[in-house]
């Protein structure tokens, strides 16, 4: 059987158009690859039968020449609701959960005639940064099976980097798209808060959550973003911004652009090898006529603390609905309603989720709400203002996406705050509702990918893709872990 899925989306589109291949061929190939890569544990549920059925149906409708996504396979993170396709959030509490509706993004994928291949592995309820809190076991890094993929969108990152599928959707509450994208050498975008409807994304921290595209290159990332954005009346926090083509600035000149690099992002907290690679990228930009300034932005060092308070507070409330009454796992033969609640949640949730619910509940209790949550909200406003002020003077804020490259799956998990520190560089973006993009810019000595983090002003995703694609082209890295590209 010929292999097509390493090819670019443009090439695939041409082949489909010429009827040299059919959507069914691509779907079958995706499942073959997933089977070959089974040990990477990227998926929780596969959508084999229905995906093949949908692919066959596409042969009976006219090919859409203007729709570059037509008939292409995509993986969806398992905290995004899919009708009649099990959605578990990688949790025992939902491991029998069969949704009766589609998330708005899923409706949009279907409207674009994309084919959902399966639901990807993740940290339980997106709580974690190594995907090791999954009830279904951790996914593995395509570059080194001993390493984590990062998280929480670890399965989506793994399956794209493995070239099982060209596209995946992730969600990002505190770096959950960008950090695993960085660890696995792919492109991951967390769009501006409100860009993509959250309707059907199982809420972790409502004021931070955002769905975004994960792809092997910049152009395809912009293509997928085109398909999932837009105002959704079912999500009051979704923005009224008009539809735009996010690929439109790709290839445009970046000369004269101004970039701020916060000193904190290049401080001792970041691994030397990573800093070196980031500096190399900055040099490339400089020679393209981009101004680079090192700046101090206040509050960045407080971001993790603020994030913990806000995210855990909101999570403790968002996850209250999993009680065994209406759906999901329920304790058998409960003696009372309280017994049903305690039993269901004790059996259903994993340790990290329980810990965050408890901390979050504590933070919102009585006077603590004033002491912690409300104070965090107000400092968050200050932090947002500081970032926005910087972005008034500069086109972008740049830095590394992560402080280290992917570490070993066997590294201890006993320090809960360590996992948050993994995300210290990406969290400020969620706190301020800004768009953030990871692109691979090199490898460390162990051949593990290193990512650059591009932060843009609200709704400036197209400009971010422009800068990212310039670097991508200049660097011209081989990002296929199996070296086939």
């Amino acid at each position, binding site marked *: 059987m010929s292999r097509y899925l390493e090819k670019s989306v443009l090439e695939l589109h041409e082949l489909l158009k010429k009827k040299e291949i059919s959507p069914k061929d691509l779907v079958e190939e995706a499942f073959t690859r997933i089977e070959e890569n089974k040990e990477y544990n990227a998926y929780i549920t596969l959508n084999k039968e229905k995906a093949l059925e949908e692919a066959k149906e596409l042969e009976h409708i006219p090919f859409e020449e203007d729709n570059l996504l037509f008939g292409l396979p995509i993986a969806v993170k398992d905290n995004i609701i899919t009708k009649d396709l099990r959605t578990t959030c990688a949790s025992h509490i939902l491991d029998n959960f069969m949704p009766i509706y589609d998330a708005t993004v899923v409706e949009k994928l279907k409207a674009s005639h994309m084919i959902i291949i399966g639901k990807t592995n993740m940290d339980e309820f997106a709580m974690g940064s190594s995907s090791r809190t999954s009830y279904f076991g951790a996914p593995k890094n395509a570059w080194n099976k001993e390493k984590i993929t990062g998280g929480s969108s670890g399965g989506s990152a793994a399956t794209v980097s493995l070239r099982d599928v060209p596209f995946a959707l992730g969600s990002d509450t505190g770096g959950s798209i960008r950090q695993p994208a960085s660890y696995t050498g792919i492109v991951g975008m967390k769009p501006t808060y409100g860009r993509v409807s959250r309707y059907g994304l199982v*809420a972790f921290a409502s004021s931070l959550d955002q769905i975004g595209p994960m792809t092997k290159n910049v152009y395809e990332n912009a293509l997928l973003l085109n398909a999932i954005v837009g105002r959704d009346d079912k999500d009051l926090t979704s923005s009224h911004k008009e539809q735009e083509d996010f690929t439109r600035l790709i290839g445009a000149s970046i000369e004269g652009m101004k970039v701020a690099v916060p000193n904190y992002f290049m401080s001792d907290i970041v691994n030397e090898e990573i800093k070196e690679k980031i500096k190399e990228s900055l040099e490339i930009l400089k020679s393209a006529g981009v101004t680079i300034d090192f700046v101090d932005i206040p509050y960045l060092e407080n971001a993790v603390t603020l994030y913990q308070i806000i995210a855990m507070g909101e999570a403790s409330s968002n996850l209250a609905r999993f009680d065994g009454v209406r759906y999901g796992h329920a304790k058998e033969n409960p003696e009372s309603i309280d017994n049903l609640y305690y039993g269901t949640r004790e059996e259903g949730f994993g340790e990290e989720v329980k810990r965050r619910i408890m901390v979050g509940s504590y933070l919102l209790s009585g006077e603590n709400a004033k002491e912690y949550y409300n104070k965090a909200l107000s400092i968050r406003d200050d932090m947002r203002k500081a970032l926005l002020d910087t972005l008034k003077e500069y086109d972008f804020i740049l830095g590394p996406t992560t402080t280290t490259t992917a570490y070993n799956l066997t590294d201890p998990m006993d320090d809960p705050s360590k996992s948050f520190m993994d995300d210290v560089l990406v969290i400020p973006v969620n706190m301020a509702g800004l768009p953030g993009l990871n692109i691979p810019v090199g490898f460390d000595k162990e051949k593990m990918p290193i990512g650059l983090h591009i932060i843009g002003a609200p709704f400036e995703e197209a400009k971010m893709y422009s800068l990212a694609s310039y670097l991508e082209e200049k660097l011209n890295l081989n990002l296929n872990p199996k070296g086939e590209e």
Partner: protein
Amino acid sequence: MTNYIKTIGIEVHVELKTKTKIFSPAKNGYGSGANTLTNVVDLGYPGTLPTLNEEVVNQAIKAAIVLNCKIRKEMHFDRKNYFYPDNPKNYQITQSRTPIGYDGYVEIEVEGEKKKIEIEEMHIEEDTCKSAHRKDVTLLDFNRAGVPLIEIVTKPCISSGEEAKLYIEKLREILFYADISDCKIEEGSMRCDANISLRKNESDPLGTKVEIKNIGSISNVKLSLEKESIRQEKLLENNETFPAQTRRFDDKLNDTVLMRIKETGNDYRYFPEPDIPYLYITDEMIENVKNTIPLTADERRKEYMTRGISKINSDKILLNRSLSDYLNQFLKTDIDFVIVSNLLLGDISFYLNKHFLKLEETKLTKEKMIKLVEKLSDKTLTNKNVKDMIEYLLETDKTVEDIIKEKNIVNITDDSYLENIISEVLENNKESINDYLSGHDRALKYLMGQVMKLSKGSANPTLASQMLKEKLENLTID
């Protein structure tokens, strides 16, 4: 026994009249099959998000206006977190920090004195499911989940069960006539909780607060508060202390019973609802809502009394919205309101109640009523005639004249015909004539009765009585 000062505060939940629910597009209705008016949002399904029904905001603005509240221009919703099976998300979306209305009042009249019952705040929130307990299971009906509510909280400024009752009656009348809610306590679209504490002197700190939950009728508001204050007085007289607690009124025991002792610091972990952006109320929105407010109950009452209807009858009419709306059609005419109101409260209401009809379901047009009143005013028709005609007036399209003709309803004003009847009566009742002429006025009544009997009730009584008297004056004792 000491005279204790009662301090009472009242919380009322009112279901708003809207087409759809507050945070979902499901229909807002009562009486449908269980779980037929729900969707994934109402079920607290994972991934769902609330939308905000604009109609709810407008209804709440309207409530704030008619309750004389100040309206907050910038507001948000909050989550109230607690686990309960009737609470689908295990948090309720409500307004804790920024209630839409505040500092309002409702004016009541206590023994002729006007008193303002101050409203601390009123806020918007969602209703919970309805639970039905059967043996060892609890059934949940999500039709009610997400029905829009406003909660109206008074200051602790009510000092008796009677005042509490008057407040609830007035509140109900105001909200009902503003089309905000149908305010049916028995269907749960209006629910009432009361807080009461007792103390000896104004200078004493407030006593221990007892909450009486889910009071099922207006009369029980008064009764339960009175019973509860007697209970507390007895305890206080014996120097007994008691903890803050929640009680309910038991109809059969005719007293309040303990539900639970209040736990200190009930912790709802309120925080701003992140799924709903801040809401900004403009003056224009308020103005637009103002223009939709129908004639209030007080305005109606004032009109009716100006037109001569007694206070009691005005109140009676206002208890039945369809009578009041019907009557209002005539506000711009010069029809005799007293006659119309008497007809509405008398024969018409009697017929409607007997046949389980609503006035708007009948064929009593405005034109028919005008004609009817005209004929009653000029005494062409008697009240008895109307009684005989009522079925045809309400149930057929026939005109008043046609009914009179067809049913052979003759209110005899024809002098010669009447004269014949009177002569016949006098002929047959010589004794009564003698009685009358001897000064026994009773005899006149008897004779009139005979005239009416002989005319089968169709004689115009005023005319007949006048003619009878004239005839008698011309007679002498036999």
